[in-house]
């Protein structure tokens, strides 16, 4: 064992690199405590959930394109199980569809794929640790996902198959607090809240673990400013999660107590809702909105920052250049996180909030566009003058940047409060956040799957299939979501089962049909990804340790890394982005573990070698 063993005396668990004790199949692949296996478990689970969420979205899209028409195929297959008589989507079911689409996508796909899958897989490998600080906690954080999934599943079935939470993923009281307000949502809404809590517990265990690992388990030489941006982003995400999530959990408990035990927090007195007795109590609906968005706005950055970090890493490797402005990138992520805590009110500009509060939130919201802009310019700066290799990874990364620009810029309309008065809760918002969450985050994830797949399984994914998947997804995606901006400008509100009963929206039917067709194309394209994922596992080209000639510590480990990750305990000598360095001869990269040419490490903005 080397004198510079990275975790001597630090890791709470005892196993060293020598003498792997035998672990059975269940311990190795099911209830595994190995961060890599847990990461891959997360990845596969979230990809499956992605398909579920996508199917729910297609249900929504079908109704908007062909309202009250029986769904072809689906209605026959399920025997009208999930819909009203005659196989068409009932308005109740429509509300449930979009509620569950959002819930699944946010809580079971985006958040776990970033933090759970890539966070788990990459953090120890990239900082040179042999595992997470608390492997058992890590395993639990994965296995708490399943009760959450079960709760979400329960919410779909507990009141019969045609019932589910129908209050939107934001679950605004009074609608969500009084059982009679949303028929069919009865117990389903309560189960949904339990699911939310469990996802929260899972994320919380993950985030505390990530923070501890990143702070305390770095390899020798891995100073804070030598950490890859992925690690920075995961770290900042974990902070966001740790401090914002408990508030939502608390609010969730309050809503559950209100629904089931007669507590009063959000429902004011004397409301007459359907057949319910008049409400008593003096709760306030705005309280939930504040508590909810206190988490859910930072959550937007939880759903974005890790992708930003991963794209930075992939982009630098693919254009063979150091990242442009490493420290500004770190600081802007920190700024996004910091500002992210004080902008939640922009979801509530029309909610009847205090106008002075609205002004405050508007200014902070405008200001959060600034670090985002800095990041975009830095990515373009990174590409500038590089040697660009157009493989699937690059394509997805460039798509990330491009889509993020659109999502970020359309956000400015909503940040301007007067304009938001008109755009609030229209399809403009829908377009905006899909550009950020799908356009940016998911394309980033697609790239990351392609990029780190060889490290996960020791084989490359198919380039041909990857490019095809990218092309179809990209076209389908833009065809789906770009026209939604126009719908929003036309005043097309969200969450309408049949907008066309309003005369001013009648003429928007064709545009909706086009959107739905594009969405179907996008949905089909995802099967290519799944196929590629599975197919390459068996038939992909064997990958060596460092197929991308990248610098990070993870590429010095075997592919796939064994238990304990590194066969040679890594020592970090420089920053992760020393591509095309004049110091490297014969190659255009300098791995962080390469001791022979000891350089200063990551440069600051301004001290670059021009």
């Amino acid at each position: 064992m080397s004198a510079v063993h990275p975790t001597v005396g630090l890791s709470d668990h005892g196993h060293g690199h020598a003498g792997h004790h035998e672990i059975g199949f269940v311990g190795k692949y099911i209830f595994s405590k190995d961060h890599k296996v847990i990461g891959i478990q997360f990845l596969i689970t979230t990809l499956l959930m992605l398909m579920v969420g996508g199917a729910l979205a297609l249900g929504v899209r079908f109704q908007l394109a062909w309202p009250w028409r029986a769904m072809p195929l689906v209605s026959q297959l399920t025997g009208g199980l999930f819909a009203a008589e005659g196989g068409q989507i009932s308005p109740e079911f429509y509300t449930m569809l979009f509620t569950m689409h959002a819930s699944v996508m946010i809580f079971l796909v985006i958040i776990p794929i970033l933090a759970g899958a890539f966070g788990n897989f990459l953090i120890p490998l990239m900082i040179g640790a042999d595992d997470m600080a608390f492997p058992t906690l890590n395993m639990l954080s994965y296995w708490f996902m399943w009760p959450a999934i079960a709760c979400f599943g329960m919410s779909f079935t507990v009141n019969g198959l045609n019932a589910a939470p129908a209050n939107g993923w934001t679950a605004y009281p009074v609608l969500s607090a009084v059982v009679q307000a949303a028929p069919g949502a009865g117990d389903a809404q309560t189960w949904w809240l339990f699911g939310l809590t469990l996802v929260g517990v899972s994320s919380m265990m993950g985030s505390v673990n990530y923070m501890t690992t990143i702070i305390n388990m770095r390899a020798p030489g891995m100073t804070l400013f030598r950490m890859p941006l992925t690690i920075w982003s995961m770290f900042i995400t974990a902070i966001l999660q740790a401090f914002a999530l408990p508030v939502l959990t608390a609010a969730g408990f309050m809503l559950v107590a209100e629904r089931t035990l007669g507590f009063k927090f959000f429902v004011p007195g004397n409301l007459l809702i359907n057949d319910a007795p008049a409400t008593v109590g003096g709760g306030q609906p705005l309280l939930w909105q504040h508590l909810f968005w206190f988490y859910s706005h930072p959550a937007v950055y939880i759903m974005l920052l890790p992708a930003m970090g991963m794209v930075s890493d992939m982009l630098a490797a693919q254009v063979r250049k150091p990242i442009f402005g490493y420290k500004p990138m770190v600081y802007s992520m920190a700024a996004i996180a910091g500002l992210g805590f004080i902008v939640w009110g922009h979801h509530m500009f029309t909610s009847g909030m205090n106008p002075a509060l609205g002004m405050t939130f508007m200014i902070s919201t405008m200001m959060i566009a600034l670090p985002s802009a800095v990041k975009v310019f830095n990515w373009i700066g990174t590409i500038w003058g590089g040697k660009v290799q157009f493989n699937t990874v690059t394509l997805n990364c460039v798509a990330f940047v491009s889509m993020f620009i659109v999502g970020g810029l359309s956000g400015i309309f909503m940040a301007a409060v007067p304009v938001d008065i008109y755009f609030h809760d229209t399809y403009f918002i829908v377009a905006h956040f899909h550009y950020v969450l799908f356009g940016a985050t998911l394309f980033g994830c697609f790239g990351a799957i392609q990029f780190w797949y060889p490290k996960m399984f020791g084989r490359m994914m198919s380039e041909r299939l990857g490019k095809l998947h990218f092309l179809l997804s990209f076209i389908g995606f833009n065809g789906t979501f770009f026209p939604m901006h126009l719908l929003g400008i036309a005043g097309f509100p969200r969450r309408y089962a049949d907008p066309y009963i309003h005369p001013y929206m009648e003429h928007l039917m064709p545009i909706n049909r086009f959107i739905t067709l594009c969405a179907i194309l996008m949905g089909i394209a995802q099967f290519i990804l799944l196929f590629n994922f599975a197919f390459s596992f068996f038939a992909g080209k064997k990958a060596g340790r460092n197929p991308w000639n990248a610098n990070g510590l993870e590429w010095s480990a075997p592919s796939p890394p064994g238990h304990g990750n590194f066969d040679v305990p890594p020592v970090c000598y420089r920053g992760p982005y020393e591509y095309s360095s004049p110091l490297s001869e014969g190659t255009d990269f300098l791995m962080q573990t390469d001791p022979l040419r000891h350089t200063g490490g990551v440069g600051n903005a301004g001290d670059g070698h021009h």
Partner: protein
Amino acid sequence: MNKFWPFFFMFWPFVAVVLFFIAPSMGWWFPSEAFSPLGVQIDNLFYLILVIVSVTFVGTHIGLGYALWKGVDNKAEKGWFSHGSHSLEVLWSIAPAGILMFISLYQLDVWRTYRVKSAYPKDLYGVAEVTARQFEWRIRYPAPGKKLQPTPQPDDLYTVNDLHVPVNQPVLIRLRSMDVQHSFFVPALRVKQDAVPGTVIPVWFEASKEGGFDLTCAELCGWGHYKMRGRVFAERKTEFEKYLNTLKAEQGFDGVNKPSESGAEIAKTE
């Protein structure tokens, strides 16, 4: 073939811009021009931001596309070894900050007029109380010649989904909700305000054109959210008063006695 992908990434922003240019003529634009002075200001602000955003969008994409275009072609042995530039970072921090600050300050006034009670127009006319419920708008007018009172009066007039207001007159509605949250949205007037249970929110607007405008709900309020369809009619004062009198004649009619013209007498007979 190498140039395909840079071209691809430059092509779609071009499509996007073209789409935005042709959209108004295709009808994929605002449902109508804004028929309210404040709405016009909102639209102007929208167009201002649209211009700023479009320039940024096109500019960044040209930059991105150009960098890719050159990057594919890069014949150099190695990429440009640069860790960044301090002056560039400062430049592209300050420039957007200035633009964003400008937008934020520029719009404050509209927001203030729209929502800050002390900045409301002085000659507001309290036209009606609008109470949202699943899934309709209940409207309570004061009797002709009377002022709108916070609590229901015996001679109040009621309609559903049908709000009449005088044109060219800033009017105020008292917005409330009987059950869950709703949102009062009149696209043509660019008015949107949530109806929060337990709160009475005064909303003012001014219609600058006669006619009927769609009133929709913009906050999820249950399964029938989509069908909360109402109409706002802006009409000349005389017609508006005629409308109120008609309502009074209908609703004051007890089957035997037609109500007299003065609202005070109704109160007496009851």
